[in-house]
């Protein structure tokens, strides 16, 4: 058995790589968890694409403000230093490369950095993309946060994606429950493996050659 860290541990691992002063967008779902693990006392500026920088944590009951929500439509608060703006300005920030980090979930990530996270291509499903394609190209670094394998055991790090793409060559790093991988010009390079996981074990799980950590 390989070592797997929990979703919360993974969120903490991602959070630990975000430096003070970074402007960060945390995608809907698991990436939202990262906010809970950002180091206290460090100023990190959270962007929500529905029109705000300087997003703070969820309010207490009784202080919920239906006009103040995040991209997941959950109630949030505003920190001192916050600013509001309209949707075109908000996505201009992302598209223009002004965010430092986006953290996104994935169905698949390819060795070339292609990301698939918006559609499983299931016939009959109602498609919905939201800001996924904008987020995928919307930061200096795009961190993907995902399990290494699907529940059915299929690799999510792949040679090329079979699901519909969200963005081409956009992912810069993949944080998984088994380890962390950088996307390089020559494919995935191991950055860190959790517990006793070995390079060979992960390659076997993925059916994919990985570049050695120190290569």
């Amino acid at each position, binding site marked *: 058995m390989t070592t797997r860290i929990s979703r919360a541990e993974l969120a903490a691992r991602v959070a630990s790589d975000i430096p003070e002063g970074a402007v960060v967008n945390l995608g809907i779902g698991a990436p939202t968890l990262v906010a809970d693990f950002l180091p206290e006392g460090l100023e990190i500026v959270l962007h929500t694409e529905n*029109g705000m920088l300087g997003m703070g944590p969820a309010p207490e009951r009784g202080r919920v403000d*239906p006009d103040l929500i995040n991209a997941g439509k959950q109630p949030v608060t505003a920190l001192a230093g916050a600013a*509001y703006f309209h949707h075109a300005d908000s996505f201009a920030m992302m*598209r223009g490369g002004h965010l430092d980090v986006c953290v996104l979930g994935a169905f698949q990530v390819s060795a070339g950095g292609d990301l698939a996270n918006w559609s499983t291509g299931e016939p009959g499903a*109602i*498609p919905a*993309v939201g800001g996924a394609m904008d987020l995928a190209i919307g930061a200096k670094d795009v961190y993907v946060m995902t399990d290494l394998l699907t529940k059915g055991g299929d690799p999510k790090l792949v040679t090329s994606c079979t699901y519909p793409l969200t963005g081409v060559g956009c992912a810069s790093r993949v944080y998984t429950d088994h380890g962390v991988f950088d996307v390089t010009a020559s494919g995935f390079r191991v950055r860190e493996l959790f517990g006793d996981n070995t390079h060979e074990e992960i390659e076997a799980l993925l059916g994919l050659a990985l570049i050695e950590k120190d290569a």
Partner: protein
Amino acid sequence: MIDKTVPDLAAAVAGIPDGATVMIGGFGRAGQPVELIDALIAHGARDLTVVNNNAGNGDTGLAALLAAGQVRKMICSFPRQSDSWVFDRLYREGEVELELVPQGNLAERIRAAGAGIGGFFTPTGFGTQLAEGKETRRIDGRDYVLEYPIRADVALISARAADRWGNLVYRETARNFGPIMAAAATTTIVQVDEIVPLGRLDPEAVVTPGLYVNRVVAVGERPWVRDGAFVGGVDIEGRPLAEEGAQR
């Protein structure tokens, strides 16, 4: 005297024709002009193309407009939500068409319409299904898709306050699509909490200048705001907490 205020919601939506393209502001429930949508339902215009980020939540607002069978086509980025059952049903039954647009391209296409831009090259969506069949170009080493403006006959939006010239200020993330939709529509209709005297809005802080606005109607403050200040006491759908408790 310039006076864009209208006395009531029926006057606000008067004249919207069948077949119109209608932009509706809001991201989820925040900024959704629910009272104007209700007035549009009462008005009865049909065969509408609606531009919104989503495709309705629950059974109110845009969802109610869909349920009333007035919408032929939705242009949006994120129709499928936990509470989008009205759209889901109509879509599966083939009763409503869908044009799916990545959210930032949706915003920029709306912005382009208001800004007189004929088309623009965007990196978003390049190499994906949503760019299939679209013109692409490599510029300075980056790949782009050519996208065109989305214009509308009518925009229905919500703001916090207006003056009689139609200058608008918004509240927090309820601003979202309001300013760009106001500029992209031939006729822009705004519901506000309150109409303030001309000169009361700080000219440095006006977000939508009045030239983008045609009609303004006051609908009163929301339960969570009093005299422009947040007072809380509601859930995320804006229902007073006591009431929420009573419903359990």
